[in-house]
């Protein structure tokens, strides 16, 4: 009758999924190379064990670059989230602000970083800061949109209850708005996290000295000899992304434990 949907993080299930995917991958790779004789099968879908071997033998490089990229992504994410959250609160406070800048916010997301780069570099002149700003640029939008939605979704009854206590602006903010917007803020963060990684890597293409993105490009450039290295970087970047995502999910559970999906429930 009730779907016993106890939302426990079933490590076993994830493990099962991953195992299943690994098997599927190896099978597909084998089929591509030996059954269908697909052109350049090694490039399209290499054997996982080959890639893993390359990863293991290159741990220092991957770890070093991965950490740099992760660091840049985190900085970009923090900056972008701060800007995004601040914007959301400002827009919620002043409807006029929201209607003024909303179309331009959307417009901002249409400008690919590559178009922005000459301008950002032209203003800032420093490569490292420019890269961080561009990373923040990509992440502020999902955080802003989701936080704003959260703020707006505060139920009228809750607002009325708060007002009946004649709260100060700060009390209103801290006791209701901030807390109520947290769940949606976290959605925004979860969406922005992989974007932060992606943009950190994309901006590395603009002449960064190191990072996972640089290895990605150079291994592609040098061809078949480094095909496994390329796939190693793909997995590394997934790893970083999942790490960031998990950290945020964990944070969410700690900070907003009241949310329905974290509670035991039926149905």
């Amino acid at each position: 009758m009730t779907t016993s949907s106890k939302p426990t993080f079933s490590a076993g299930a994830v493990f099962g999924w991953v195992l299943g995917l690994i098997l599927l991958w190896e099978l597909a790779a084998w089929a591509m190379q030996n059954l269908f004789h697909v052109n350049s099968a090694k490039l399209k879908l290499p054997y996982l064990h080959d890639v893993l071997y390359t990863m293991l033998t290159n741990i220092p490089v991957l770890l070093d670059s991965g950490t740099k990229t992760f660091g840049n992504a985190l900085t970009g994410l923090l900056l972008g989230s701060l800007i995004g959250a601040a914007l959301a609160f400002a827009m919620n406070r002043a409807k006029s602000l929201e209607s003024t800048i909303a179309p331009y916010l959307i417009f901002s997301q249409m400008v690919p970083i590559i178009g922005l780069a000459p301008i950002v570099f032209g203003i800032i002149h420093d490569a490292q800061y420019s890269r961080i700003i561009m990373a923040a640029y990509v992440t502020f939008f999902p955080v802003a949109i989701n936080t704003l939605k959260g703020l707006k979704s505060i139920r009228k009854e809750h607002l009325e209850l708060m007002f009946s206590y004649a709260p100060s602006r700060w009390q209103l903010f801290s006791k209701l708005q901030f807390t109520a917007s947290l769940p949606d803020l976290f959605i925004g963060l979860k969406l922005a996290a992989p974007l932060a990684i992606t943009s950190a890597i994309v901006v590395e293409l603009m002449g960064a000295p190191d990072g996972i993105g640089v290895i990605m490009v150079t291994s592609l450039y040098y061809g078949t000899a480094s095909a496994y290295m390329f796939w190693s970087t793909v997995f590394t970047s997934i790893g970083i992304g999942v790490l960031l995502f998990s950290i945020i999910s964990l944070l969410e559970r700690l900070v907003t434990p009241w949310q329905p999906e974290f509670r035991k429930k039926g149905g």
Partner: protein
Amino acid sequence: MRLLRLNKSNMLPLSMGILVFILWQTKVIHALLRLEVYQLPIPSAIWSSILENHKTLGEFAKYTGTEAILGFLIGSLLGMLVAVSAVYVPKMAKGGLTVVAALNAVPIVALAPIMNNWFGDGMGSRIGVVAVLTMATMAINAYKGLSSIDPSYLELMHASAATKGQTFIKLRVMHALPHIFTALKINMATSISGSIVGEFFISSKGIGYLLSDQIKLSNMPLSWACIVYAAAGGILLYYVIELLERLFIPWHVSRH
């Protein structure tokens, strides 16, 4: 946001836009930020470029637009599927959510070459890229909407002897609609930027192809013409979704 009526809520963005436009055209912005025209072109130059190249721009816009919309639809659909199965088969599907989120972490720098290897330099590559990028957003948002139901509502449904199907449609889906629409709005932006960035790598047509090509030649007016087309497409799609949102969930608090 009322689109077509020139009323109070329209005046503000419009006047701000006009102000920015004037500052831009007269190069006040250039003076303030110490930029050169070859870093940020002025609107009149962008306009001439649009006029000069409107045939190519139009053709390429259609090409890229198709990639974006198809990828958007496929990705959002797949994302919904994952979210729904995560709600009803939680043990299996929670893992699925993680996998989908992991896919989202594959940077486009890696995704594009992989897709290019599989699908060549045609639309298929970009549709693949956009689908992957939009899946996770839809999955996460939809899952949140479908699952973050207050238990008291679920109990109410049980108390009224609702079938699984009715619970699904009347409670879960309805509750999830605002989240789904948020995901659609984000996905719309992602699909446009995804298809454009996807074309930076290996493509012989499209707005992204033209943009990346021309910017390397520092042909800023034409590069920005591409950006203008992309932005126009994005804003159009956004308002379409806003319209749909108003149709589907007129009751939602955030609409007020």
